[in-house]
Each structure stands twice: as C-alpha cells, then as structure tokens.
C-alpha cells in the first residue's frame, strides 16, 4: 500500500487556476502553476520585491515559506472533490540553503487526505530538485 491513499489520480487544474487568481496574496507574490509529468509544479518567479537580504542577494526566508504554504493549499484544492479554501493549522519549515534571486519551484506530496485534516509535505528548490532550499510540512483543515 502506497503512503498516499485517498487521492485523486489527476489534479483538478481548472480549480487550481481559479484559486490562483482568487487569492490576493498569491497574485501579489506572482505564483504560477503548471502540470509537469502528472505533478503540479509551482513557480515563484524571480522578483526584486521579494529580497530579504540585499547583500547576497537572497529572497526573504518568510516569502519562501509563504510560497510553500500557498503551494500546499493549492495542491490540496486541486485534489479535493469539492474545491474550497483550506485553513492552515500549522506549518513547520526547515531552511537548507538561502534562496537566491532567481525563479523558485515547489512540489507537494499529499501524505494524507482525511475527512477534515490533510498533511502535506512541500519541497522548494531553485537549481535542482535534489538540492532543496527548504522543506516544509503543513496541516490543513478542510471544510
């Protein structure tokens, strides 16, 4: 039995697009999403407005976290039978390397989708998926 159960086979991209435009902060950050080999790939395009450390320069660590949380919420929405905005319960973030001023990517794994609560792990990277800049875990309450 795979770790992932109870999960739709193909993500609902139409719902994903709708919610990408519906969340003001996702629009503010400029988050995009596309389908890549059956997985949803989230993209935070390079943007000088998102710099936290100008001397490196590096993105604001909180922004990387916010992008990962939003990616997780959208990933969940795309896998719901009746797409609705999930509520974040908690978020745990490990920073592995500073995120430079360039495009950042994220992918999510819906580890468990329960009736009320879902557990999602998120990986964010810039140069290579095997060299993540941050990994995170989120719990969401779904309506």
């Amino acid at each position: 039995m795979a770790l992932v159960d109870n999960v739709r086979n193909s993500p609902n991209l139409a719902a994903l697009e709708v919610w990408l435009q519906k969340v003001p902060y996702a629009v503010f950050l400029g988050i995009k999403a596309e389908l890549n080999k059956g997985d949803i790939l989230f993209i935070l395009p390079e943007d000088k407005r998102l710099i936290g450390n100008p001397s490196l320069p590096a993105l604001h660590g909180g922004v990387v976290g916010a992008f990962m949380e939003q990616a997780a919420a959208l990933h969940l929405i795309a896998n719901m039978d009746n797409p609705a905005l999930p509520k974040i319960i908690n978020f745990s973030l490990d920073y592995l390397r500073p995120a430079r001023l360039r495009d950042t990517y994220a992918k999510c794994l819906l580890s468990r989708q329960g009736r009320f609560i879902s557990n999602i792990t998120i990986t964010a990277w810039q140069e290579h998926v095997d060299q993540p800049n941050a990994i995170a875990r989120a719990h969401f309450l779904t309506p």
Partner: protein
Amino acid sequence: MPVLSNSQKYNLVKIMNDHIPHAALLGIQVERIDGEELTLKLPYQTVLVGDSDAGTLHGGVLTVLLDQTLGMATVCCDATEPSVTPTLDLRIDHLCVAPPGMDVFASARVYKATRKILFVEGCAYCESKENPIARATGSWVRVADIDLSWLAPPDQDVV
C-alpha cells in the same frame, strides 16, 4: 550586563529592518523593544489577503512577519554578542484567523542561547498579546559577529 542598551538595540534593529526590501514593500515597522523582546508591526493591506470573501490575511504573511521578528529578536538577546544568524527552522501554529482590517503585531525573544544556536519564541496578535492569532518557535544559527563599532555608545542615545 546587557551587551546593548534598549536604544542601541532599537537603532540596530531599525537599520536592519530598513535594509530589507521586502519589509519595506510590506511596510513592516519596528514598534518597540522592551528588554530582550522585539515587537514589529505589519499594517493591514488588501493585497495580503488569503481569503477574499472574509478579508482575512494569508497565513503566509504571518510567516514573513514572524520569520523576520523572531530572526531580528536574536540581536536583542542579552546573553550573546549580536550575530549574523540565518534561520535554521521555524514552526508556526495558527490559533485563529487574523481579524479583517486590523494591523498585526509580532513579538519575539530568545529563550535560550547556546554558543552556536539561538532558540526563539514569539507570537502574532492584533489587539492584545494575551490573545495571539499565531505562535511561533524556531532556531537561528550564529555564523559571525556583527561589527557594532559604528553604533552610537549608550550615552549618546537619541531614542
């Protein structure tokens, strides 16, 4: 004996905050420093909303505010020299949604300092710190001391 006076901490934290482009974009300001506790303020803005029907702030916005507040609280710690401290990890519990239309404050302090690691805790709130909307804990790594030779001595405090 604290390493820095309250007003020296304020000046240092204000300069750090003013040098963060994303903090300027969001309008994050230094609200106050009380001993080892730092408080920052994030003004409410509709572009930062997560649920447009309810008008409530996005959880990720709190991540930005708390990451920055807990991270900058490391220089307010009296047990160690102010250091360059990248974030190791951060955990946030979202206790309730932020009331729509209200500015958010975040307070944080180092609760344990070791030679290499600073353990920090904090919370975000709107009306009262006793009624937080989120709680955060995290750890920061000391990688280098900050050169403070330019900082005004305590007796020249202007704040």
